[in-house]
């Protein structure tokens, strides 16, 4: 089976660390940049200049376009990136956003010591959507042990002030989390309590960098002090109900269940990160600098080499090979799938390089074994997941697999999705402070009194997108849960009920999911009070009062508005009825490409023609599934056009029955809608039934992409291409032999059949997955 890391493969790289400033205003003695073996920083420019930033942005964008990367993250790092100053920082951010965002979803992050964080900086980060991680080692005593100014003074008060800024409502969404380097001389509970007190959305506990050449500090007589320290934190964190995610523990829990680790510290996930120094040289992960002078060097530069060239380097390719790239001792270790040999840099020994277990091997083993014992006594997830399809209604799996999804099958999936959204709302509401539950209380009442109105609102695809997000932020950001009031308000409007709710306004906008948005004249952010009565609402906010009144049906009449503006969600003709054209919901921006702004009247008219034409094409080219599309598809989200004119479409994992599409002609739009709808159907099926076992190390080669793909990606792609094959078969049947439709049909049929074979041979499918792919393959030759 082809896997990652085969010679010559340019593995896609999606994470980039940019050293924008090479100096730091602290002099932490555990910092790998200045205090470890590699001293290459001394010969480099202090800041990354504009020319270098432009070249990096160009390389990343070009790589993201070639590999069709859905997401790219760029981490601004140093030294201390805030030493750049707000003006230079703005230039860096502007260039990165301008060049990369049109190609791929760009996550911008910054890792900082927080000392210089200020309001102007936070405003800038809010403008460019940059999330900020802060380094803090715990309580004052712990932090002062290493994180001091060059004159020895404590940095603790300044760092807490910086974190305080990130905790204010205006900037809370910028707070990415805290990075804490463990020191076993610190009291684990005091460190944990101090970090918990600042309520980070995520906590990273890092082992101090060490190698076999420069072993970790161990107090005399203690075999596994780091494991003991981490286990003490784990115990307290679990007793506390896990108030925030701690990445190391979550990674180990995930790898224990066969999943991804999502980090380079443990597990067998392929390394997916490169570094750019201030002078534009490409380097490997920074932690290698702890090993020996020059360990991270590649000899390549952004001015002369592409990301593909970096990714083909043998030292990078080695780190894509999972188990095969580990030392003999690790390969036979009973906990290797969880541990993965630890951080690559920590394996270094002068005599044989990185072909060793981690210098923390004993601690990692002890930690993993003890945590597994603890997980065993925790209550397991009690909802059993179907592995062989027997929980599904008779014949459903086979019909869906064969591309014969009918209206009943889609309705069954939609009902399951509705139930899942309800479960998510219960969980979010439960995690919301009692004083902030007016929205939930209203929704519970409406669910009894007007269940149809609640149901219709909860079926809106982006309610679940919001709920998944809010659930993640429970305990750290109650603002996320406040949107529940907007869901309740939308249900109340539909029901013609009376409610009064505390609602969140953002930049002068109150959004009612699936209905529309009220915009008030001032860009107010914060709580407002919404009173809904039949045919009339009143919104009291920081800048005054806005009144909206309408006769009977909100969609049939243009409401009268004083003190603001109402923008209704619009519907366009599709499938003999209408479909929601979603260009308002802030949660719609979860697709691979940016959601387009609300189009003007003439563009909307063009969309109307395209969707009507696309439906005719779906009816003609996909006769077996048109009824399913009609019954199932709920929304179309317009996406920003590709600058090169390439067609764009996307399905968001959590937004069932909604497709994102950039404007194109009707025939291409039909293909895109059919393709994305398949993803939605399969996504909903995967919620109910496991078709594959998580196998992060397995990568399969497919015809439609140049890079080896994970199993779920191949399954999704194969399933979508089944439908595209069918569409081209129908189109070809109306064309003379040898025409372009015949060629395309043959191309898609071959790709799909080969990918189905690769899946069947991967060993990753469950019994249900095996049956699914066999049916799918059989359906390719009707």
């Amino acid at each position, binding site marked *: 089976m082809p896997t990652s890391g085969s010679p010559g493969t340019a593995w896609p790289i999606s994470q980039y660390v940019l050293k924008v400033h090479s100096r730091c205003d602290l002099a932490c003695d555990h910092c790998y940049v200045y205090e470890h073996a590699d001293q290459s920083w001394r010969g480099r420019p202090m800041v990354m200049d504009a020319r270098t930033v432009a070249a990096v942005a160009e390389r990343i964008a070009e790589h993201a376009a070639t590999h069709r990367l859905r997401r790219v993250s760029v981490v601004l790092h140093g030294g201390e990136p805030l030493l750049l100053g707000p003006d230079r920082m703005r230039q860096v951010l502007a260039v990165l956003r301008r060049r990369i965002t049109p190609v791929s979803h760009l996550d911008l992050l910054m890792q900082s010591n927080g000392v210089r964080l200020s309001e102007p900086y936070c405003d800038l980060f809010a403008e460019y959507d940059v999330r900020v991680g802060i380094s803090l080692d715990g309580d004052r005593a712990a932090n002062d042990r290493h994180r001091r100014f060059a004159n020895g003074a404590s940095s603790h008060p300044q760092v807490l002030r910086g974190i305080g800024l990130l905790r204010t409502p205006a900037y809370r969404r910028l707070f990415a989390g805290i990075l804490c380097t463990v020191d076993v001389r610190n009291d684990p509970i005091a460190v944990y309590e101090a970090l918990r007190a600042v309520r980070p959305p995520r906590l990273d506990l890092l082992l101090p960098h060490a190698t076999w050449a420069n072993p970790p500090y161990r107090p005399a007589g203690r075999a596994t002090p780091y494991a003991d320290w981490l286990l003490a934190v784990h115990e307290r964190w679990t007793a506390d109900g896990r108030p925030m995610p701690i990445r190391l523990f979550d990674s180990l829990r995930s790898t224990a269940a066969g999943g991804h680790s999502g980090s380079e510290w443990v597990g067998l996930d392929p390394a997916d990160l490169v570094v750019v120094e201030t002078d534009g040289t490409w380097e490997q992960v920074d932690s290698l600098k702890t090993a020996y002078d020059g360990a991270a060097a590649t000899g390549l530069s952004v001015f002369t080499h592409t990301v593909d060239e970096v990714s083909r380097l043998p030292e990078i390719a080695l780190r894509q090979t999972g188990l095969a790239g580990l030392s003999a001792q690790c390969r036979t270790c009973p906990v290797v799938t969880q541990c993965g040999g630890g951080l690559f840099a920590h394996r270094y020994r002068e005599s044989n390089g990185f072909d060793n277990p981690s210098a923390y091997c004993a601690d990692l083993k002890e930690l993993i074994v003890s945590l597994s014992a603890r997980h065993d006594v925790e209550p397991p997830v009690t909802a059993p997941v179907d592995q062989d399809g027997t*929980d599904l209604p008779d014949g459903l799996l086979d019909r869906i697999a064969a591309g014969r999804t009918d209206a009943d099958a889609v309705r069954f999936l939609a009902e399951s999705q509705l139930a899942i959204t309800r*479960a998510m709302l219960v969980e979010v509401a*439960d995690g919301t402070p009692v004083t902030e539950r007016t929205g939930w209380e209203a929704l519970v009442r409406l669910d009894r009194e007007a269940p149809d109105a609640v149901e219709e609102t909860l079926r809106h695809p982006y309610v679940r997108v919001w709920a998944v997000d809010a659930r993640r932020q429970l305990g750290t950001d109650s603002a996320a849960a406040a949107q529940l009031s907007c869901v309740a308000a939308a249900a109340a409007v539909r029901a013609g009920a009376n409610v009064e709710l505390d609602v969140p306004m953002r930049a002068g906008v109150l959004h009612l999911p699936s209905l529309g948005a009220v915009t008030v004249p001032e860009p107010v952010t914060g709580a407002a009070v919404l009173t809904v009565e039949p045919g009339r609402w009143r919104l009291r906010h920081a800048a005054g009062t806005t009144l909206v009144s309408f006769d009977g049906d909100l969609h049939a009449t243009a409401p009268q508005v004083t003190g603001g503006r109402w923008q209704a969600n619009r519907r366009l003709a599709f499938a003999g009825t209408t479909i929601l054209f979603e260009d308002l919901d802030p949660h719609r921006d979860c697709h691979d490409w940016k959601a387009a702004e609300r189009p003007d009247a003439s563009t909307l008219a063009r969309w109307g023609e395209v969707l009507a034409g696309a439906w005719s094409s779906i009816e003609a080219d996909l006769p077996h599934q048109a009824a399913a599309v009609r019954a199932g598809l709920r929304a179309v989200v317009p996406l920003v056009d590709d600058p090169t004119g390439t*067609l764009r479409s996307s399905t968001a994992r959590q937004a069932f029955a909604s497709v994102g599409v950039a404007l194109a002609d009707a025939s291409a739009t039909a293909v895109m809608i059919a393709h994305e709808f398949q993803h939605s159907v399969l996504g909903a099926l995967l919620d*109910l039934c496991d078709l594959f076992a*998580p196998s992060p190390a397995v990568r399969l080669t497919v015809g439609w992409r140049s890079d080896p793909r994970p199993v779920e990606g*191949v399954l999704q792609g194969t399933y979508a291409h089944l439908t595209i094959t069918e569409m081209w078969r129908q189109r070809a049947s109306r064309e003379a032999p040898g025409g372009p439709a015949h060629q395309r049909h043959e191309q*898609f049929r071959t790709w799909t059949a080969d990918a189905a074979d690769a899946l069947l041979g991967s060993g990753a499918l469950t019994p249900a997955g095996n049956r699914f792919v066999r049916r799918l393959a059989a359906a390719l030759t009707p």
Partner: protein
Amino acid sequence: MNIAENQQVSMTEWLSELRRRPLGEIPVARAVDVTRTVLRHRDDAEGGVEVARFGSVA
């Protein structure tokens, strides 16, 4: 069937019970289990959905 007491029901059965029960009467522990199950290995997974590649072939 009552999901509050019965641990041995399938996911599909759980969901139809969640669908029928009034929102205010859904046990939180069950809701949490369903959510966690649904998001089991999809929370951070990369590469779940293949990006449509239509530029040259559709």
